[in-house]
């Protein structure tokens, strides 16, 4: 089984991401919360970080040689808030893989834990808005040795 540890330090494209007000509204609505055109829900940190990283979920699956039906799940998610997300705002984002750890458990079998971090600033600002550190679990078919 190949090891993905070499991906540590891999930089995602990053770039800018503008949070569309309609998407912010739909996000709240899909979460059964009160949609508000003036305020973005801070739960959108996940999406802003992912879009700002310049990758799709499928791109990350591809990086880890996983498929949509291979049982990938979230591991941990941390958001450090330095400001609030705003609908219509444009964000500058930098993202990279922090580490990929090969682990095993009696129930889970062998899996890879991919951790990546995205730093998000409002366009033109030196001040951070949020920093998201995200880990995903990629089950591997082989069992622990």
């Amino acid at each position, binding site marked *: 089984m190949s090891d993905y540890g070499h991906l540590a330090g891999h930089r995602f494209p990053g770039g800018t991401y503008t949070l569309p007000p309609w998407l912010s509204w739909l996000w709240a609505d899909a979460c059964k919360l009160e949609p508000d055109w003036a305020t973005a829900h801070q*739960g959108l940190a996940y999406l802003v970080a992912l879009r700002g990283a310049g990758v799709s979920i499928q791109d990350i699956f591809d990086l880890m040689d996983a498929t949509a039906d291979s049982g990938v799940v979230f591991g*941990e998610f941390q*958001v450090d808030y330095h400001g609030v997300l705003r609908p219509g705002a444009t964000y500058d984002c930098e993202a990279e893989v922090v580490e990929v750890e090969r682990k095993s458990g009696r129930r889970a079998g062998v899996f890879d834990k991919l951790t990546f971090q995205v730093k998000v600033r409002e366009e033109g600002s030196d001040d951070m808005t949020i920093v998201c550190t995200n880990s995903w679990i990629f089950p591997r078919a082989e069992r622990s040795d």
Partner: protein
Amino acid sequence: MATREIQVGQQLEPFVIDSVDPEPMKTMAAILEDPNPIHFDTNVTRELGLGDQPVNQGPTNLTWLTEFVQRFAGGPDRLVTLKVRFLGNVLGGDRFECTGTVTAVDHDAGVAELEVGATSDGRPALGGTAVIKLAD
């Protein structure tokens, strides 16, 4: 709102979704561009042994936990850190409940630490910690 009067051991007002609605999972799959069919195709969830209900997206569960914390804190601008572990699936039709406790209060720094979590039909779904700013 979490004021400087809050105390260690204080319980947060629970946040409850009585029955997780499967329909918005389709909207969320489109928003997220998430190709995983467990969120919208119950033929796949059955094939995978996950049952007859679609699996709610992690970002939705995360948003509910964020809402729970920011309601206690008194607004989105009072969030400092939220750290969450995803412990289990939340399925359509489940009762989703967030609970939490104040674990530390630093009046000098004007922040409080919380232990937070969520269950789905009584099963662990999320666990984590949060740091919030105290209101004046």
